[in-house]
């Protein structure tokens, strides 16, 4: 059985009396690609922000490699080997590529002075791995000068730098062209091939179904379904399941026998 990287137990987040996420059990094992899907407002973003330590859960337990953690925050999350590629990419656009890759994790020598030579060479190496050409950009290029796909590349480079065990990608293919989307897929496969895990959040069910091997469907703050690819079969069945979640009375003509044998959490 693969190592359980992170587990959220009965995790909830409420804003006043409104629950964005209400009592969710969720886990990611080493070396798997998990697809997290659900309608707008289902609680996907809240869930991954809690994973990233960007917001604190109202209640529940976070367990990293079998150890319950306290004082969970963004710095702790990164130290635990979780890197998040946020939907807005979380880049400081007036800064250089180097400064963005090492934001919050500066490489320093004496007295906190930056080791700018090492940062630069590491940034060059990462950019080569991602597929940037050093003829077009240098690590000193300002991120604001880059295109959307190139900025995504900087966010991905930052995520792989620390050999994170889990890379969380929040709608990484939204607003990207077909070729750029293909690059992101290749990135996910490469991360998977290196024995690490990816949590892939997406609206395009075909994209998520292609890339992930296990699926978590969220609906109104709870997990509606957890199932592996074999239990679901085809992307079309997943889409029809999603449709039924959204319209339980079912005005649309979907086959009512198409039940999926997953587990409800």
């Amino acid at each position, binding site marked *: 059985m693969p190592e359980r990287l992170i587990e959220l137990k009965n995790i909830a987040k409420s804003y006043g009396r409104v629950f964005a996420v209400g009592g969710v059990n969720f886990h990611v094992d080493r070396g798997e690609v998990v697809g997290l899907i659900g309608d707008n407002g289902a609680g996907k973003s809240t869930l991954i922000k809690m994973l*990233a*330590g*960007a917001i604190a859960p109202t209640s529940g337990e976070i367990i990293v490699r079998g150890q319950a953690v306290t004082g969970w*925050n*963004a*710095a702790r*999350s*990164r130290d635990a080997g979780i890197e*998040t590629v*946020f939907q*807005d990419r*979380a*880049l*400081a*656009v*007036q*800064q250089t590529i180097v*400064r963005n890759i*090492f*934001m*919050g*994790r*500066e490489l*320093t020598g004496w*007295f*906190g*002075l*930056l080791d*700018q030579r090492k940062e630069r060479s590491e940034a060059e190496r990462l950019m*080569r*791995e*991602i*597929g940037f*050409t050093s*003829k*077009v*950009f*240098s690590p*000193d*290029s*300002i*991120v*604001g*000068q880059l295109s959307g796909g190139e900025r995504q*590349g900087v966010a991905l480079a*930052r995520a*792989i730098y620390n050999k994170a065990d889990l890379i969380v990608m929040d709608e990484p293919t939204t607003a990207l062209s077909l*070729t750029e989307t293909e*690059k992101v897929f*290749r*990135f996910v496969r*490469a*991360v998977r*091939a*290196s024995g690490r895990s990816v949590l892939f959040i997406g609206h395009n069910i075909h994209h998520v179904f292609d890339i992930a091997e296990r699926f978590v469907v969220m609906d109104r703050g709870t997990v509606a379904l957890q199932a592996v690819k074999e239990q679901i079969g085809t992307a079309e069945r997943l889409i029809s399941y999603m449709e039924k979640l959204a319209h339980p009375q079912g005005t649309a003509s979907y086959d009512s026998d198409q039940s999926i044998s997953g587990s409800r959490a």
Partner: protein
Amino acid sequence: MSLSLEPAAERAPKVVRHSDGAMRKFLNVNRASIGTLAVFVVMIAIFAAANPTVFLHWPIYSSVLVTLPVALCLVVPLVFIVTVGEIDLSFPATMGFSAWIFALVVQAGYSPFLGIAGAVVTGMALGYAVGALVVLAGLSSLIATLGMNYMLRGLILIVTQGKSIALLQLQDTTAATLLSTDLFGVPVQVFWALAFVVFAGVLFNHHRFGARVKAAGDNPDSASQMGINVNNVRIATYVFMGVGAALAGVLSTMVNFTWWPTTGDGYLLPAIASVFVGGTPTWGGVGTVAGGAIGALIVSFIQSGIVAAGLSGFYVQFFNGLIIILSLIGHRWNQRRFR
């Protein structure tokens, strides 16, 4: 592990957007401060053309160099605060307050160096208080620091009843030699202030703190998602401002060996103007310490320059404003804002 995401054909360069020339890179990175330096050179050239006899001789520069060190100690930390996306209007009172502690320690018969330490600690404490008020209480830094400036200055006036403190015992001490003499015809304070500017420049450009100040000022949400404690970074810039204000207060007290209850009052607007004349934009995320220092030089020079050029004192404010506006227009054209 190979994460090559692009086939070889796509790796060919599409557009060459940067040059490898070291000189060009230097100019590009330092464009704001170089622009400011150009403004300074042009200004001096105009003054020198108007009155060559005064401007081709040393005394005019020497007189400016008396007030410049104080301005430098204030302007340079202010660059950090503007870069992190805040403003501080309370530093004149912090300067007066720290210098007051310095004067009290010296008056009580202790070493002036103990007085300097006391002033710096006071400056840091006041900076922390102002920063915490702005950041933790979530107040507008423009208004909250204005309020703190009035309150601290008012406190000084209430306690001292507006009386100054003469520190004639400082004459002929080691501290006076180190802080109040001339070296090669230049007030020795200039060298201390330049050392502070260099220290701040290294902090800004080559230290983790500077990197985080820029990240937090550029995109606070991203910075905190990347694990930077943005509130702490913001407060730290105010603490650093307190250090600069304390040093400025000590230096200005050492010029005439007298502390005034109004110490620092006259520096508010010139110091703020210097930051922006120096090429630091108002929107945060980027800034220049070297530019701020040159900006301080420009602003310090305007007053003496205009009078020495043969115009009456009535022209000072007009030209002060003119140079600020022209500099801003110049920088506007020189800077690009990325979103």
